């Protein structure tokens, strides 16, 4: 029972990310500007400085190592 609820929460979290991207594409171009940024804009903003880029690289490496190597 608990497992099903947790799986549902994970599905909702994944759907939230997908909805962000879809709503970013559906709400533009609008005369008042976009309501939600696209994932590409988010990544661009997140890697705007060298230190942020290094931090993102470390997080990206950790994710890959954790999921695929260990």
């Amino acid at each position, binding site marked *: 029972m*608990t*497992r099903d609820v947790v799986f549902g929460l*994970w599905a909702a979290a994944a759907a939230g990310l997908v909805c962000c991207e879809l709503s*970013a594409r559906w709400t533009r171009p609008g005369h008042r500007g976009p309501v939600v940024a696209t994932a590409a*804009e988010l990544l661009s903003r997140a890697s705007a400085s060298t230190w942020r880029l290094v931090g*993102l690289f470390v997080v990206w490496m950790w994710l*890959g190592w954790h*999921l695929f*190597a260990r």
Partner: protein
Amino acid sequence: MAGTRRRVGVGTAVAAVAAGYCALASFAPPFTAAADTVTAVAFFGLAVLAAHTVVARRQPPAVPAPARSTFRPWVASIGAACALELVTYFAGFSDRHAFPTLSSISDLAFHYQALKGAAFALWLALGWGMFRR
């Protein structure tokens, strides 16, 4: 015309190599030297790309950045996923089966090689999206 054709050819070749590499990664079981190697090679490739990005930095963006408020839905969604990971991680100390974390779900999913290859491709695409400029 010739330049466009060449660019399309290079792009197709890169996509084919990446697809082959993801297929290779899907065959590497975790906790083995093969898995360590395929992951480390991707680290190296993206490290070169990131270093190139840092050195070549950085033309000012041609398009103005979107307003800060447009990032809020993303921050909320990513924050919720991180919170769920933390809650399931700590709550699952006594019963991991009842509280699956992202990595325990991926362990289940990665029994299917196609899913593992697709996840590896997604991971590479995320790195490519972050570091290419």
